[in-house]
């Protein structure tokens, strides 16, 4: 199988792809428009996908509108990320029943249906790879996460229309994905829309992808198609005006834990945790044990947020009792200490935290403000003072 071969297909080819995935037993998850947002749901045909939909994103602002554009992927990202396919928001870990003094533990039988993602963004692929290090790269890998990821089929859709809050270019995670098996996808699509409609340049990133692509039909890609792809990506990159200095931010934040900007952002932050819900890499989760009236005990694992007051609870109380502490923890973890803990940044530049913050806090603006007065600390002891 020639992994370097690329093809061009039309929308029918995509439908054949979806059919091929279904025939192989995948549960295919893709973008659909529901309740005014692009969300991730099970899809079976391109008719389910957001044709003609476009998103408008800004701090604390998200709107969709539709026109007669034949494009399926002319929007950036919705609030949800593929995170919940591999790390569910809540899951049963085990159930214990006791009979006298014998305790029997059972676990849910695993749903082994593999997941296929259609239309995952390059930033979302990057997010998955960040989580891979957390859940599958440590001393104790999460077997369920690892297996779901290993059996997943990922079809990336490169970004042609980034939104106002995107900054993937700063984080090195988009708007396109590189060639080759290291990139981590099975197939990569680039939507090329012209007056004749929408076509898709398909690149192969794995053996599994090469095997499926044969059923899509399509013609070999020509140099004009590659040139069109480059033009799409260059235009997309040009449109992104949000920037974050990724090379410097880890050190910048580590050296500015006392910066007055933290007080400033804490006055605005509601500690609602929206950012942690929509973020593709936030992974904090806890366990909770419950008892039913018949004595059956269940342990669940569920997403937590570091904005929860209880997140840092020790027996005397929370270590981070104020929004000031919790916002600082979130941002320094995401952009700085994540490097120490897992060897990468925790941020993929998707902009969701900016869009979905009810008060429109923009982490790129916060970082720039700290950088602009690097080393600033509140004045503690001032010379002078009145003589009264």
């Amino acid at each position: 199988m020639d992994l370097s071969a690329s093809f061009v297909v039309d929308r029918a080819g995509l439908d054949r792809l979806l059919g091929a995935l279904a025939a192989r037993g995948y549960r295919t998850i893709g973008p659909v428009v529901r309740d005014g947002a692009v969300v991730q749901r099970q899809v079976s045909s391109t008719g389910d996908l957001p044709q003609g939909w476009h998103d408008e994103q800004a701090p604390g602002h998200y709107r969709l509108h539709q026109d007669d554009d034949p494009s399926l992927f002319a929007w950036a990202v919705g609030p949800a990320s593929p995170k919940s396919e591999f790390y569910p928001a809540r899951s049963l870990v085990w159930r214990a029943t006791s009979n006298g003094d014998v305790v029997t533990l059972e676990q849910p039988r695993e749903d082994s249906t593999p997941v296929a993602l259609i239309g995952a963004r390059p930033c979302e692929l990057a997010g998955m790879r960040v989580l891979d290090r957390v859940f599958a790269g440590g001393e104790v890998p999460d077997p369920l996460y690892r297996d779901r990821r290993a059996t997943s089929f990922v079809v990336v859709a490169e970004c042609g229309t980034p939104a106002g809050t995107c900054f993937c270019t700063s984080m090195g995670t988009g708007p396109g994905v590189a060639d080759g098996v290291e990139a981590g996808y099975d197939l990569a699509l680039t939507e090329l829309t012209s007056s004749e409609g929408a076509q898709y340049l398909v690149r192969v990133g794995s053996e599994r992808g090469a095997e499926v692509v044969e059923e899509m039909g399509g013609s070999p890609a020509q140099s004009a198609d590659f040139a069109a792809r480059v033009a799409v990506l260059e235009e997309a990159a040009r449109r992104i005006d949000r920037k974050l200095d990724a090379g410097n931010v880890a050190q910048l934040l580590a050296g500015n834990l006392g910066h007055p900007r933290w007080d400033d952002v804490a006055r605005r932050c509601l500690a609602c945790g929206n950012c942690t819900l929509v973020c593709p890499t936030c992974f904090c989760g806890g366990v909770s044990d419950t008892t039913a009236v018949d004595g059956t005990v269940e342990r669940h694992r569920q997403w937590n947020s570091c904005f929860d007051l209880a997140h840092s609870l020790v027996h005397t109380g929370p270590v981070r009792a104020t929004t000031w502490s919790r916002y600082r923890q979130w941002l320094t973890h995401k952009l700085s200490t994540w490097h120490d803990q897992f060897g990468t940044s925790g941020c993929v530049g998707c902009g969701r935290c900016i869009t979905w913050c009810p008060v429109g806090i923009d982490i790129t603006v916060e970082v720039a403000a700290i950088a602009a007065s690097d080393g600033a600390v509140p004045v503690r002891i001032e010379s002078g003072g009145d003589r009264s």
Partner: protein
Amino acid sequence: MTENIGELVAEHPLFSGLPVDVAELVGGCSQNVAIATGQLLLEEGEPARSLFLLRRGHVALEVHEPGRVPLVIDRIGPGQAVGWSWMFPPYRWHFDARALEPVGAISVDAECLRSKAEADPAFGYLLMKRLAAVMLDRLQATRIRLLDVYGRDVAH
């Protein structure tokens, strides 16, 4: 308008009643300072570089511990002094001291004060007597507090 800092030192109870030249000596190491509410005059672990003579506002001597609001050891107010760790090596603060309201104080540079005391033993002795009296007073008060006399029944 510069009011003589030596006069301000002489007004402070720690130095009141001492000869004028003593107040001037201390004034030579001093400057007027202001600390905003919530800021730390002393930070545990940091180099101890001054003696603070409080003139206005109260300061809480505290210790931080994760999971707890800062534990208040003492509250110090106008006419009292804050900071002793400058007296002996390794010259590092043992506690935090936080301004509970806007604080006006005289900050006496510790190195300056120590070197003047070394150079002039008579001055040094006067200074130590004043400081020791305050420290003894605090120690007695702290010892009584440790007994928790209002607390649980004392079985013995």
